[in-house]
């Protein structure tokens, strides 16, 4: 018998008169649909009105206050009336090193101030949109039409789309896949596959560098009948674009990696949580899944983020998929024991999962031969900013930052600063440029590899502005759950703001130090733990402040 629609729908059917199904458990089982439904409303109407929210709330059903709490959590969902077309234009650190500031002033001249409706259109500034190798970027939401990305973007092009000009997007054709590694994995058996992953020594590529094999065995051995695999494709770290690049290059490597992972840990359901602004990559993945899906034993579902950096944190990502506000959970319990929907969950980054087919095909031992003892295999680095050929570089672990910059065509002009690991990373000193980029060397010398972002700033860049932009980024992206991060990111921004105005007092320095320490020591998740890294290192090495 079908579930009753009585509790949600306006109309009910006569058979509902004497029986209804669903109740609390029915509603709870549909809660995960909340974000996709809000996306659907946002995409077609351009915003989520009170009436629309109430309707969504009744249909799922979920309490309207809760739905409102979720809707207001995300940048890409708006609960105030918005024009039909909204351009989100990157003014983050990499763009600032390039032509980003010029684009912003061009837009101001051509379209007027940001955040101001102009007929059916509007533009606003945005955090990094993950196309740093291409120069300037704009992401444009269009009510009733597919959202799109323009990179590189000019003010004229953005204005044209905002006017409603039609744009032809060409999704590259998707080739038919050959899942030879997956076939081999099935022959080997789940335990043997996990053994190969352990033998490979591969560590997670998302930033935390946890040994992947340990995680896989943890999930496989965790008690419970239902297990999940989640691919973290919520790539939002400023200066990072490798996951998008990987999907564009070969979505099947990722899909095959997920299928192998699901087989190896005993999951029949997998999710790919992809950044909300990566619509083109999402389409490509969706087409690839359509081609590959019937060959797989695992059901892979794409879930779209909605503009919240915090959702790259694994437990916040679970909450987001489950239809709650994307706030992190206190660990332990760790996802391997209690993750998505409370079940043991394997969550890995795109790059990690895409490396799995190679490990299965060539054996873990071969993978372990590459790189260093603790940092095995090849790694993708995103080199951007003032370099000759910004892009993704696939290199063996052990290269230095200076070598990578040279690989990317060398610096344009004189290097003033290099930021590794994105906003959550830190600025390098001159000597650190020659430290090999491995997990062990990074740990010893205080360099954060993080997501593999390497951003080069030449002497033309205002490092005060860059540091301020990073402080602003964290104040905007803090989810607000825990006090150290909720208040600390804003107080950090206050002080950096004062420094930008030319004030640099001992009290502010001491407070900044204290704020950073408390955020790192007492915040609930990695966002707070790392929110002071860049600011602190900028001061330490004299990029900003009265010593600069």
């Amino acid at each position: 018998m079908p579930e009753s629609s009585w509790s949600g729908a306006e109309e009910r059917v006569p058979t509902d008169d004497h029986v209804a199904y669903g109740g609390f458990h029915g509603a709870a089982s549909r809660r995960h649909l909340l974000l996709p439904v809000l996306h659907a409303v946002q995409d077609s109407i351009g915003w989520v009105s009170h009436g629309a929210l109430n309707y969504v709330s009744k249909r799922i059903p979920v309490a309207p206050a809760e739905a409102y709490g979720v809707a207001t959590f995300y940048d890409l969902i708006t609960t105030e009336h918005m024009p039909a077309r909204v351009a989100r234009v990157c003014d983050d650190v990499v763009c600032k090193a390039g032509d980003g500031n010029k684009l912003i002033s061009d837009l101001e001249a051509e379209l007027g101030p940001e955040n101001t409706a102009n007929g059916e259109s509007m533009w606003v500034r945005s955090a990094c949109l993950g196309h740093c190798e291409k120069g300037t970027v704009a992401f444009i939401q269009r009510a009733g039409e597919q959202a799109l990305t323009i990179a590189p973007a000019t003010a004229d092009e953005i204005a044209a789309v905002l006017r409603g000009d039609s744009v032809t997007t060409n999704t590259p054709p998707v080739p038919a896949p050959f899942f030879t590694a997956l076939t081999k994995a099935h022959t080997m058996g789940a335990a043997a596959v996990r053994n190969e992953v352990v033998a490979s020594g591969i560590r997670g590529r998302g930033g935390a560098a946890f040994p992947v094999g340990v995680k896989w065995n943890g999930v496989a051995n965790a008690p419970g009948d239902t297990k999940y695999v989640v691919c973290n494709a919520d790539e939002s770290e400023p200066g990072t674009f490798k996951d998008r690049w990987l999907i564009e290059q070969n979505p099947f490597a990722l899909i095959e990696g997920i299928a192998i992972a699901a087989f190896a840990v005993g999951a029949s359901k997998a999710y790919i949580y992809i950044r909300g602004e990566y619509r083109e990559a999402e389409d490509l993945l969706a087409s690839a899944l359509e081609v590959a899906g019937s060959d797989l034993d695992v059901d892979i579902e794409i879930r779209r983020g909605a503009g919240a950096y915090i959702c790259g944190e694994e437990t916040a990502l679970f909450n987001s998929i489950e239809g709650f506000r994307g706030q992190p959970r206190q660990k332990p319990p760790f996802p391997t024991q209690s993750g998505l929907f409370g079940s043991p969950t394997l969550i890995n980054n795109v790059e990690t999962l895409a490396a799995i087919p190679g490990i299965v095909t060539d054996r873990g031992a071969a993978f372990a031969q590459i790189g260093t003892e603790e940092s095995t295999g090849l790694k993708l680095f995103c080199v951007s900013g003032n370099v000759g050929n910004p892009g993704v570089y696939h290199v063996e672990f052990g290269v230095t930052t200076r070598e990578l910059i040279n690989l990317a065509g060398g610096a344009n002009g004189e290097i003033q600063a290099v930021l590794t690991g994105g906003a959550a990373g830190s600025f390098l000193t001159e000597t650190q440029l020659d430290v090999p980029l491995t997990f062990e060397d990074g740990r010893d010398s205080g360099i954060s590899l993080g997501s593999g972002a390497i951003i080069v700033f030449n002497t033309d860049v205002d490092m005060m502005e860059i540091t301020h932009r990073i402080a602003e980024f964290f104040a905007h992206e803090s989810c607000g759950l825990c006090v150290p991060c909720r208040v600390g990111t804003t107080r950090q921004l206050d002080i950096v703001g004062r420094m930008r105005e030319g004030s640099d007092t001992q009290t502010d320095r001491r407070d900044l130090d204290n704020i950073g320490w408390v955020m790192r020591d007492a915040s609930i998740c990695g966002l707070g733990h790392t929110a002071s890294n860049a600011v602190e290192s900028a001061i330490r090495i004299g990029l900003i402040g009265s010593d600069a």
Partner: protein
Amino acid sequence: MIESVLPNPGLVEVTVNGKTVLARPDATILEVCRAENVDIPTMCFLETLSPFNSCRLCVVEVTGSRTLVPSCSRTVDRGMEITTESERIANTRQTLYEMYASTVDLSLADADTQRWMAKYDVSPDRFGHYEAHREVKVQDDLYIRDYDKCVMCYRCVAACGPDAQNTFAIDVAGRGLFATISTEFDVVLPDSACVYCGNCIGVCPTGALMFKSEFDMREAGTWDENRQTITTTICSFCGVGCNLDLHVQDNRVVKVTSPIDHEVTDGHLCIKGRFGYAYLQSEDP
């Protein structure tokens, strides 16, 4: 009797500030410490609600842990070594209170908070003086909401929602420092799902949520807790047997709460228990 049918888990040994203590394996560090009379400050934690991990005031050092550990939500492990006071901890707690003080009005925060702020030598204006600027929401005859005093501890959200009342009239909206407790689209409470159980008020630690009776008396300058008695009795409005604490001033009930440690209510009541006393003192009997 209950004991005989529930599993009796084995105890584990942990050390608290060097002292060896036996604890249930599902006990939190906070439970174990408070049972040992170790003073640990909290703001968002309440025994009857799930831990929210918001205030972080309860952090302690656990040997082997890189960062401080929230004692309210971490359960003990065998052999865990816990330190509850150190310069690192004191400095963190002081800074957290100073962060709070820069974003909210703590003038009506509970007595424990006032005591801890003194203990940790808090300078409330360190990160800037907080100027109250929000209008108090007075939308009916029973409640007031003064979000200038809201510390975003989430207690009210949990009491309204999954941990007790399951009504979900309010949730957190927005993000970061701009997050607020809100009904959908900030509609007035009578237009929301609110059923006026008062459980949000019952759990609020800072006076941001208040019964209008108390608010009116405070405004009039007649609220005086030194002249109040608290008498526990049983609600008369149905057969469940909820414990009521009647707060009485000048032979008038001025507020009704429920003891948090009673297993019937866990400190929660319904609209009748909270407000049904009114007839006792109606002017026109």
